């Protein structure tokens, strides 16, 4: 039925459409009902000239060429809300939106802030433009040694893939150090790649730079291939997603777990150490790439519930309907662009939900989130006293208390 409409397609539209079929489940796109659920659930749908549903309609009409001139695809935060809700199981995020970004990027239509993050990723292996030699500098403030796997050659239980923001961002670095302290305290055997670690590349991929993603993945795989370890652990859901779902497509397969899962394994050891830090109301924000994309909803909640004095509350959007912080799909590098387009921030929306449920603390589990949400608490009325804490920070506070 859908194919009948595509008769006089222009060359780009035709090629673009066919390229979608190469992606797993991509052919489902032909079964689109035009129910517009995708555009409706999209947190930035209101600010897009071409929300996903309309893109499909225009593709059918053979007039998608104009999309190349529009920059509205840069509003997509790759949060998977559309994919999750689609009744026809169309891989909207993986296929349609990501491919569209690739084409717009190839056409040279790249916002300047994104361009600089991509160039930094190429040059330094991280989007922040920080020296790769300083990637392990966060370990210097710890009172124990963290092994760098290539220097200290031996088999490790865990290869900890630290990630970009977790390594360099001053706020997120504190979370990373806290996780290291917890691992150390629990006797978890781990090593890091240090200066050899490159960005996992997943957000760059979702921002339309597949080639860059592949380059970064190859660099990481080259080092990982020379190390001995049982599993990868990471605090970064984007890195988790890369290792779980994307690296295997390139032939690089490693078992990977999120740090919340690893800590949960040690819950019996942790529980006696945890003291009452309450009473506090804690709302947990499901990171898109931990929850909706990879279905890890319970491990973070179980950890939080193990902390005495915490009352866990749920915000309006939770678990599979969680609301993106705005950092995904290259969003970390498009804040200015998106503000101009939409004049609203997803992080503020989320913080308003935290205010509504009367949360004292917004608990997070992704390195993109502490700085984004902390910023938002400064602008949302009533959020002045909301603290943004990574789950690891709450656990550590309960141990220290």
């Amino acid at each position, binding site marked *: 039925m859908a194919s009948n409409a595509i008769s006089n397609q222009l060359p780009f539209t035709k090629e673009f459409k066919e390229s979608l079929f190469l992606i797993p489940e991509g052919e489902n796109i032909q079964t689109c009902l035009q129910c517009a659920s995708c555009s409706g659930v999209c947190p930035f749908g209101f600010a897009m000239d071409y929300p996903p549903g309309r893109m499909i309609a225009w593709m059918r009409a053979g007039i998608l060429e104009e999309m190349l001139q529009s920059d509205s695809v840069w509003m997509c935060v790759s949060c998977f809300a559309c994919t999750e809700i689609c009744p026809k199981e169309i891989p909207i995020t993986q296929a349609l939106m990501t491919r569209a970004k*690739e084409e717009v*990027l*190839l056409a*040279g239509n*790249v916002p*300047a802030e994104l*361009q600089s993050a*991509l*160039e930094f990723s*190429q*040059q*330094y292996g991280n989007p922040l*433009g*920080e*020296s790769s*030699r300083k990637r392990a500098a966060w370990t210097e403030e710890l009172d124990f040694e963290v092994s760098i796997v290539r220097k200290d050659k031996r088999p490790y239980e865990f290869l900890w893939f630290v990630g970009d923001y977790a390594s360099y961002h001053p706020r997120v670095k504190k979370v990373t150090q806290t996780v290291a302290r917890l691992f150390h305290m629990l006797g978890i055997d781990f090593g890091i790649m240090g200066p050899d670690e490159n960005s996992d590349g997943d957000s760059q991929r979702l921002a*339309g*730079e*597949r*080639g*860059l993603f*592949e*380059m970064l993945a190859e660099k990481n795989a080259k080092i990982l291939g020379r190390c001995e370890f049982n599993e990868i652990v990471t605090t970064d859901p984007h890195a988790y997603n890369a290792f779980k779902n994307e690296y295997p497509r390139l032939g690089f397969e490693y078992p990977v777990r999120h740090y919340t899962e690893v800590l949960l394994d040690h819950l019996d050891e942790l529980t006696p150490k945890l003291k009452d830090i309450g009473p506090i109301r804690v709302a947990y924000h499901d990171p898109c790439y931990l929850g909706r994309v990879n279905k890890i909803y319970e491990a973070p909640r179980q950890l939080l519930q193990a902390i005495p004095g915490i009352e866990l509350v749920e915000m309006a959007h939770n678990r599979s309907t969680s609301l993106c912080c705005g950092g995904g799909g290259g969003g970390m590098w498009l804040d200015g662009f998106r503000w101009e387009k939409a004049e609203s921030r997803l992080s503020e929306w989320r913080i308003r939900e935290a205010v509504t449920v009367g949360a004292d603390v917004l608990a997070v589990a992704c390195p993109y989130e502490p700085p984004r949400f902390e910023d938002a608490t400064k602008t949302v009325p009533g959020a002045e006293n909301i603290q943004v804490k990574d789950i690891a920070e709450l656990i550590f506070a309960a141990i220290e208390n």
Partner: protein
Amino acid sequence: MTEIVVIARLVPDLVEELEIAPSGKALDRSWLRLIINEFDNHAIEQAIIIKERSGAKVTVISPDAEGVEDMLYSSAAKGADRLIKLTGLDEEKKPTNKSLAQSLAGLIKEINPDLILTGVQANDDLTGDLGPQVADLLDMPYVGYISGVSLEGSTAKALKEYPGGLLAEMEISLPAALGIQASEEPPRYVAISKVRQMMSTANIEEISAGELDTEGEFTIERMYLPEAAEKAEMLEGSEEEIAAQLTSVLEDLGLL
């Protein structure tokens, strides 16, 4: 067809720490991380802009260094037609710009370009700027601090930047060499997939630089890191505390 030659070089990346070689008279090049000279990147962009506007064949020439192939392939992905790597350079020692200019001039003479574009300066050029030296050896006029070029017949019309925002529209007889301060549009992004495609299709010609002088005509007595003695008084504390301290500084200055 208009022939444009761009000279593009890699320079020390100032994001990284720099180290002095044990001799105390040069940079420790084994420790150096290199990056494209930002002004050369603008020169490449300006060449491509001219090509797109009025047609040209663009040749990019770069002295060999770690990472130079990536830079050349990425120029090709932007639209450069011919890529040349100048080989046979000493990895430990930087050649003087005079000897590099002599080598480049010999090579460029054969290409016989209408226009040479290069960055107006490079951060490690102790032995003068490269562009004007190449221009002189080829008997071409040189104008630097250019932020826009168009070609009209045998003349280049170029905007030269003066302090205070004053611009001079220059008329320069071709062939000529221009030192680029900024391209008309910021350098474009080229997807890695396009660069990778160039890696398999584009050809980098390797041409020997010949014997280059690394000693120079003046003696460097000492190379060193600047003294950090006169550093600013750092305001410390939480952001709140710093804001309070700064506010009282502003008050003391009579600004509030």
